[in-house]
């Protein structure tokens, strides 16, 4: 697939269960967009996530701010979206302030569930509609998966509840945007582990059945890259079985490296650990690939416990390569 095709929809919604690395994927997609001359804006939804830390930028607010060249960040807070809506739609700027200062949205959204999601999606729609906007690509770091279905199906609920009126019409507009793959695309993020895989398969099906959305790709995060060839792996197994690792120690010595028993234990230990983890991951990836119609894009495990821009740049490289192969 051409990257231009992948980046054709202006809205890219990145979604998945908590802790699977949605933010990482959202950031990598933004870098990919920026590399291809597009100005991207990553929108977090009502949370103080780790996104600004990745870019070493200050905490995000409702107003988009540039975090790195061509990459902006913002935080869509439903209260502020409601204020903006009332201001634009009803010219009620003064009253709209009340919403942001009290629990109103809590009450109203309790009275009419889904309104919070509608407000968020409404803001995204508003950004998408804005032809004068500087953003070519809007990347939404969506709420966690269980919630995500509710999030994306909110316009349907509202549209059903209100048969007529301006809000009903607006809910229809949101649905049209979500269902049009040339305007918006949902990408799912998962990990090669039991629960995230099961949930991704369920989400993929439910998105189609309940909302009429076919998601674009499934990004499987944190996949360990293969270390050894089959031959090497067999050779290592044999060495370990023989209990004699002197061959390797001799090779080390020839290269000027002294490896004691602890060192040998360490290199063998980590090789076995990697193989064991890879076997677990492979079985989950098999299930995932069988269980979803979307193409699965494997992203490598990053040998770092935090997130930093160079890591995301690496991921963006992989994303570019993998998308080209779709």
């Amino acid at each position, binding site marked *: 697939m051409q990257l231009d095709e992948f980046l054709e929809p202006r809205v890219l919604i990145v979604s998945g269960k908590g*802790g699977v690395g949605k933010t990482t994927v959202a950031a990598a997609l933004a870098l990919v967009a920026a590399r291809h001359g597009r100005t991207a804006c990553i929108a977090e939804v009502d949370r103080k996530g780790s996104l600004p830390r990745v870019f070493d930028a200050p905490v995000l607010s409702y107003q988009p701010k540039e975090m790195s060249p061509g990459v902006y960040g913002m935080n869509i807070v439903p209260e502020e979206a409601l204020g903006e809506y009332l201001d634009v739609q009803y010219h009620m700027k003064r009253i709209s302030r009340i919403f942001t200062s009290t629990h109103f949205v809590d*009450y109203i959204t309790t009275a009419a569930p889904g309104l919070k999601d509608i407000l968020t999606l409404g803001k995204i729609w508003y950004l998408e509609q804005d032809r004068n906007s500087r953003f070519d690509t809007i990347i939404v770091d969506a709420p966690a998966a269980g919630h995500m279905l509710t999030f994306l199906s909110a316009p349907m609920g509202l549209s059903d509840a209100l048969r007529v009126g301006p809000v009903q019409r607006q809910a229809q507009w949101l649905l049209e945007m979500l269902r049009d793959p040339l305007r918006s695309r949902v990408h799912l993020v998962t990990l090669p582990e039991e629960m995230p895989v099961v949930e991704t398969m369920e989400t993929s099906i439910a998105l189609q059945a309940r909302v009429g959305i076919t998601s674009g790709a499934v990004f499987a995060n944190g996949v360990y890259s293969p270390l050894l060839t089959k031959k090497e792996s067999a050779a290592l197994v044999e060495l370990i079985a023989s209990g004699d690792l002197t061959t390797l120690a001799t090779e080390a010595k020839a290269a000027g490296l002294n490896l004691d028993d602890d060192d040998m234990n360490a290199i063998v230990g980590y090789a076995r650990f990697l193989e064991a983890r890879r076997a677990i991951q492979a079985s989950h990836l098999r299930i995932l690939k069988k269980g979803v119609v979307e193409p699965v894009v494997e992203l490598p495990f990053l040998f770092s416990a935090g997130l930093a821009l160079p890591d995301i740049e690496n991921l963006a490289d992989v994303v570019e390569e993998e998308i080209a192969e779709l």
Partner: protein
Amino acid sequence: MSTRAKSETKHSSAIAELVAHKQVIVCAGSGGVGKTTAAAAIALRAAVEGRKTAVLTIDPAQRLASSLGLKKLSNEPTKINPRKFQAASLEPAGELHAMMLDTKSTFDKVVLQYAPSPEQAQRIINNRFYKNISGTLSGTQEYMAMEKLYELHADGNFDLLVIDTPPTRNALDFLDAPRRMTDFFESRVLRWFLVPYMKAGGGFMRVANVAATTFLRVVKRIIGGEVLEDTAEFFGNLEGMYEGFKQRARDVAALLRSDATAFVIVTSPHEDSVREATFFASRLNEEHLPFGALVVNRVHPKYGDGIDVKPRQLTKLEKGGDDAKLLAKLLDNEEAFMRVVRLEDQNLTALARKVPSHRWVRVPYLEREAVDFPGLVAIADQLFANTSQH
């Protein structure tokens, strides 16, 4: 379970100590760190050790229920068949019960308890606004989790209750939940705005207010008049119940602060969850809530202290024969994992300043996943045998 870990620990782990002495263990941490699994494993082992234990989970994976041998979990504790233990060569001296929080029915029970009459309770329960609360209002689940915990504790049927906390964005939400809920119910601002919808003589001053009227007109347009009527009716019916709610919230807070309770913070070595856990540890401290132990899940194993390989040596190996090439790859791999291990340690240093090392329990990545009963047993072994030498 490796025999090495066992011989290293002469004294029992922080978790083992809590299981022996506490009545309530609250597992808290950010989402995706293995909180539910930890809660289940702690409870499982407590049952083996002779305590009559119930684990309260919130929105668990269906797999957890089946790993415990249950088709599904209900809102009342269900006993786990001792045969499950026997199959894993364990002889439980106590009992293990498990339940999953049903927010709605727990809330109904609260309403029934505090409503002045059964009729009024029914009016509330049938109200549409009320029906939405359990599904959408943030904090309801947390509030009801605490409510259920209190109820089970007051019943006194169990020696130990292990509770998993909801997967909130913020691990602390459940601490504030009862207060936030009572604030919500009592909001004067809301009632003031709903005045035109309240029945006459509802006990409110009728205030003719332009802002309120305009506001209502807009809200009515957005969500419809019926919804507003439901809301007004709900709050009208709730009159007189606030004191009961507040008293209960105070009782729950007292239980959480008492000696009977201990908080177990669960985290992974990832930057974000460690940050959350560190913040949580200081919050517990500020709130005088009893900290019990810290569980660090999914820690990469540490083999050795790192091998110092010069680039020159590595290049030489890479250019050598099959064995040399293999060795080069193994050294590369070791270096990569040691980098992760160091980063994880670095991430955990902030926590180490807040939590004394004898309260740490590290659970390494296991060869298998904790998706079945033997998997839970393996995690429990780690939790109980392992004390951390940081």
